[in-house]
């Protein structure tokens, strides 16, 4: 009797075990399949850009020349004017955004809780969802329509600030939340004032995460095109002045070559388009890797 009961229960356990392992395999297959499906467009995109752009960016002129007097028919020329423009715009944008975003994130996490914090957090949420073209139109309305300015690179930087700040605020907030409260308490218990606890204990602990957040912000804005079209236009010539004139930029250059993409007569322009796209991807990637290395080196080796 008891043996039989034990046997049935073992068998039931075994069949349940069989069903469970089947479910487990099924879930594993589904998860792996989804992963592969998600990977396809990424690999495809990288392959397309690399295969079509590699021969262009390895030419001798690419990194040192601008597109001055290069028409769609002609081969040659480079992206130096575009790299310069994008670098200037993004650099100024980053210099303005990082302090604002860090202070906002510190306020929300370290001093938050009040009504002002709730409103601020809500505003950041809204800002996160703002399309870049709306940010560009806002800057255009304020600085060009209302204040009477001329289109220039600096306005692109300002529009990009509106896109970059929420990205950095959100990631920095997450990083500050990860800093254990025990560290703050340990610091207070040593008689360290709050602002020094934040600057000397909390921020250094979250440093590498914050750097990653800044890089995400840079990657987010470096490829933005709408603000360029609206606020600065595109120049194939080198213009290092952020305050006046058309300015070259990587997305601007891609955009300027797009009409020739399917045209056999202007295949040089199509080559340059893919070269520019690859250049943009490479620059964002190099910045990312560089930032990670800096963040790693600044931490004490564990």
């Amino acid at each position, binding site marked *: 009797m008891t043996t039989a009961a034990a046997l049935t229960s073992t068998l039931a356990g075994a069949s349940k075990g069989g069903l469970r392992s089947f479910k487990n395999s099924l879930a594993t297959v589904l998860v792996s399949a989804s992963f592969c499906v998600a990977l396809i467009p990424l690999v495809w995109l990288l392959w397309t850009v690399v295969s079509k752009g590699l021969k262009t960016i390895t030419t001798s002129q690419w990194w040192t020349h601008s597109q001055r007097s290069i028409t769609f028919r002609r081969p040659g020329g480079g992206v130096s004017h575009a790299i310069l423009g994008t670098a200037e715009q993004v650099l100024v944008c980053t210099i303005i955004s990082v302090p604002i975003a860090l202070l906002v994130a510190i306020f929300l996490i370290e001093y938050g*809780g009040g009504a002002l914090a709730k409103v601020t957090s809500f505003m950041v949420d809204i800002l996160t969802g703002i399309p870049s073209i709306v940010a560009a139109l806002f800057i255009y309305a304020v600085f060009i329509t209302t204040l009477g300015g001329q289109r220039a690179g600096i306005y692109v930087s300002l529009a990009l600030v509106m896109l970059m700040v929420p990205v950095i605020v959100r990631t920095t907030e997450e990083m500050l939340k990860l800093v*254990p409260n*025990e*560290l*703050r*308490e*340990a*610091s*207070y*218990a*040593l*008689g*360290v*004032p709050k602002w*020094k*606890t934040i600057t*000397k*204990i909390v921020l*250094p*602990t979250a*440093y590498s995460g914050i750097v990653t957040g800044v890089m995400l912000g840079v990657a987010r804005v470096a490829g933005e095109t709408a603000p360029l079209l609206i606020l600065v236009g595109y120049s194939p010539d080198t213009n290092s002045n952020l305050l006046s004139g058309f300015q070259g930029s990587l997305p601007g250059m891609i955009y300027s070559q797009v009409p020739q993409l399917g045209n056999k007569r202007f295949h040089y322009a199509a080559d340059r388009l893919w070269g520019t796209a690859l250049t943009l991807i490479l620059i964002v990637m190099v910045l990312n890797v560089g930032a990670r290395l800096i963040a790693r080196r600044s*931490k*004490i*080796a*564990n």
Partner: protein
Amino acid sequence: MAKRIDAKNLDIYYGKFLAVSEVSFTIAPRSVTAFIGPSGCGKSTVLRTINRMHEVITGAHVKGDLLLDGENIYDSAIDPVEVRRTIGMVFQRPNPFPTMSIYDNVAAGLKLQSGRLKKSDLDDTVEKSLRGANLWEEVKNRLGKPGAGLSGGQQQRLCIARAIAVEPQVLLMDEPCSALDPISTLAIEDLIQSLKEKYTIVIVTHNMQQAARVSERTAFFNLAGVGKPGKLVEIDETQKIFSNPSDPRTEDYISGRFG
């Protein structure tokens, strides 16, 4: 160095919730006092009011007086940051600063409190504090290594070294051994015995044997019921508390009939 602590009719609130009520006690300088009692009875809360650490939680406040050598630390003219410089604290879980080396962890309090310090003075303080925490011999050759790389017991002694480096008058310990193995616990208990020659020590513990081993006086806290405030039942010589307590509730607790 060490100072006397007098609590007079302390009521401790979290917002409107009265967590602990009517606590009065006197703690003599250069002594070890243990706080025991069931979970949630407010012994850690009382400990944290001694250096105003409970104020870190929004809405927490205190009514009554807490005197440090006769000076009320809750006087409106007193800066809580100054109080915490005088009254150091060691926490339940070792919490060395993860971005700092062993040396910088010990020096952190001094460096962050005041600006420039002479390197040689700092070196002396770090060595003295690490010796004081019985950790010097184990780490003297790797002061530049991260503090988080030490074992749990070593990390806790590092935290004690960090706390005594700023030369407090009083050292509060909130269950300092509850995350440690018996050998590390023994090391900390030995350390408490040597530290009491210089500091007034208050230690919260769930381990009654530990209270009996390390403390001269013991305070028993209890909760009247769920949602009611915690109270100090009695405070007396440790030997008396554990052999012949005046209050029957204390006897129930230490004999294991309750809690």
